[in-house]
């Protein structure tokens, strides 16, 4: 079994299943914070998928997308946190 096959048939599915599991938390919530945490984790897992995918397709360029995704995930979390606190403060 080559690295390619291993990643393709084992690692990627594991990551995909993880995404599906995390998505359950996103759906059930119950609080917005829960969803934000789930979203953050979804994105983080996405980074993993991208990294694996870049190996599979032999495209190191995809790793840059991982970088951007990391940045984005952070921004999203921060924004939601910002929102939650502002909303709380104004209520």
């Amino acid at each position, binding site marked *: 079994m080559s690295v390619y096959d291993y990643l393709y048939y084992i690692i990627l599915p594991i990551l995909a299943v993880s995404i599906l599991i*995390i998505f359950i938390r996103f759906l059930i919530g119950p609080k917005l914070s829960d969803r934000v*945490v789930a979203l953050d984790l979804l994105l983080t*897992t996405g980074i993993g998928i991208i990294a694996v995918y870049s190996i599979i397709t032999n495209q*190191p360029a995809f790793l840059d997308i991982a970088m951007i995704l990391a940045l984005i995930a952070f921004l999203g*979390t921060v924004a*939601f946190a910002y929102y939650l606190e502002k909303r709380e403060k104004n209520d």
Partner: protein
Amino acid sequence: MTEIIVIILSSLGALFILLAAVGVVKMPDLYLRISVTTKAATLGIGLILLGAGIYFSDAAILARVIAIIVFMLLTAPVGAHMIGRASYFTGVKMWKNSKIDELEGKYDTKSHKLRSED
């Protein structure tokens, strides 16, 4: 050799991510979910990325991978802190079996200032 390292690293990484995924569903309250996910996922992704860096065996790519890992190590805890703090404000309850809450009542509800003493 690289191949084996890549396989080991990615397997470990994927396991940690799976762990985080299960954790985020299974843990009973938000703070616990944050606790579980931040580290497990960061570790997992870090391992996978490292694997990718090693796989391409190119100094430039490795450097970039390390940059991403550093970046994640820098931002993930900050994000966790932010969302945890904000959730506490918005009244997200702790698990019923929690033992102790020394933060209770320390926040000023108006200014959101945090006191160190009562």
